[in-house]
């Protein structure tokens, strides 16, 4: 199972990386906290650590640490615009339930 992103998400990540001027790709992860158990991490990646799993989607590199990988298997990252608001969405098949706003979740 891979971790992927949609074309529009990849376009946005690539554009942001260009503006930021450094970084090799995107780091996804989870950590424990938040009102429903787990929370996503979505960060620029400046380096690949030896233990990281690596994926590539529409030309953008995605790195995930091994402890997070089980929670994220099969996730597709999407970019979405809702009115004037815009941002990234995790389409994660592992999620059983999440808090009202979706910032934290359980598997």
């Amino acid at each position, binding site marked *: 199972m891979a971790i992927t992103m949609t074309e529009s998400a990849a376009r946005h990540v690539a554009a942001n990386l260009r503006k930021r001027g450094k970084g090799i790709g*995107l780091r996804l992860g989870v950590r424990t906290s938040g*009102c429903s158990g787990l929370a996503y*991490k*979505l*960060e620029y990646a400046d380096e690949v650590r030896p233990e990281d799993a690596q994926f590539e989607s529409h030309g953008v590199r995605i790195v995930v640490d091994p402890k997070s990988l089980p929670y994220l298997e099969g996730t597709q990252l999407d970019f979405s615009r*809702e*009115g004037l608001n815009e941002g990234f969405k995790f389409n994660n098949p592992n999620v059983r339930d999440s808090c009202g706003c979706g910032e934290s979740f359980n598997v």
Partner: protein
Amino acid sequence: MALFQISEPDQSPLPHAKRRAVGIDLGTTNSLVATVRDGVAVVLCDDAGRPLVPSVVRYGEHATEVGYDALAHAADDPHDTIASAKRLMGRGLADVASGQRRAYRFVDGEGVIRMATRSGAKTPIEVSAEILKTLRARAEASLGGALDGAVVTVPAYFDDAQRQATKDAATLAGVPVVRLLNEPTAAAIAYGLDNAAEGTYAVFDLGGGTFDISILRLTRGVFEVLATNGDSALGGDDFDHAIVDWARDESRLPALSAVDARRLLARAREAKELLTQHDAAPLIVSFADGARLELTLSRETFGRLTHALVAKTLVPVSRALRDAKLTASDIKGVVLVGGATRMPQIRHAVAACFGQAPLTNLDPDEVVALGAAIQANKLVGNRDGDDWLLLDVIPLSLGIETMGGLVEKIVPRNSTIPVVRAQDFTTFKDGQAAMALHVLQGEREKVSDCRSLARFELRGIPPMTAGAARIRVSFDVDADGLLSVSAREQTTGVEASIAVKPSYGLTDAEIARMLQDSFAHATDDAAARTLAETRVEAQRMVTATESALAADAALLAPQERNAIDHALAEVQRRLEGDDRDALSAAVSALNAASEGFAAKRMDRSVAQALAGKRVDAFDSR
């Protein structure tokens, strides 16, 4: 489903912890709101993708319109459509009545300027609040909830009254201001962080209505503002007016109605913007009575028309450099801010002045809002592990009135803020029980030439001889540039203080002019100060001699008394005039004449103190 933003490595926010922070550039002509999204500062656009909100408010029949909707009615509904309200912030009617071309119906009241509209009389604060409300609504729609913090920028030259007015407008609009930030400093943040630049930089900000020049030093991410200068009544608007004046002269236009004047001004502005890219621009206006104006403005003509305006921007530049004790060759880069810096003649003049092409890689309209957004993002706590520090300066010296109508400066101009400065003062008369403190802002030596900020009184000073009391006056300027002053009598601890609630426009001091005047009148001011100081000394001498005479006249022989009376009369006569040297000589003569008298009084008090005491009581043990 929540929408996520990309964070810097290891800085993913906790769930629900991401704080919504924005930077707001509340401009004279256009306003913007920006935020940090995916780690990059971006300007928030409306649903039509437009980043700017024209700083125009129209009080319509049914609703209040802001921005492009209001601007569209500027020509046909001039009285109820308010533009450039920022120029009126913290000002009284007396400040704008002279020579400013305005189509509004001003109403005066309590020193605050008001404009009559169909929704009632509106202050510039209320007009600005409408613009801020629009920006707030856009930001909330964009960020998905209520704002946690906003940084609003103001020109470096804004005085305390104008800064307070800006804060009031934000409060009225429900914008949670965490910091007011000088516009050039915000621009430096946008450039400094994005480009990791080090060295000494100049920020040249020619906006719609104000001109600021700032000299900044950037070292390893630490900003220090070395000097600021500018002209709070010079901006892109003046270039529009230059075109209007030219069109009137060219076609011998009769006096125009308010509607036609607005229409001509709008076309003039379009022509100006076209000339940035083209060598010539048409100026075509259809007036209400059917008359039509058709002219072509070439870039050369425009350059000639505005030559004086361009030259006017270079005067504050050399002053700021002088204040920073630098020359143009010390400046490593020049940052351009404000839409008016797109004009080729400005870019050429700046390049010639500093001997290098200015930096323009960020949009000059957006750079201030972007910097403010970065600062806001940091202040609300979205970034940590970040140690850059921001140093800002106060634009004009702060001080208090002393005897003789002189200003004693306590916090000098260009001090970095926040700053606390204290100075000790004393009483002028024997038994003086109260002291009036008059807080002033400005560079001139005389009270009448500076701007009055506040007055308060310190009461309950215990009776002491003149000069014995120690009254410490402290000035505290916070990070927003707002001032509080306190006075404390050191022996008893009685204290009085005031937070400067600036008297909006009650005095007519206009900040740029004040600064220029202080340079122009430096010699007169120095002379006025020495005269006033001599007067105070003479007055003190007269009072002391009179009270001594009243107490101990019996000690004097008739001819001694005569000499003192004569010298005293001479001092009093000279006090009436303006001849400082003669007054000084008369004071010396009185000193000489009363020397013997003073010695006799001293001998007698010593004799009284010693009388009836045994010598061994004074033994040094």
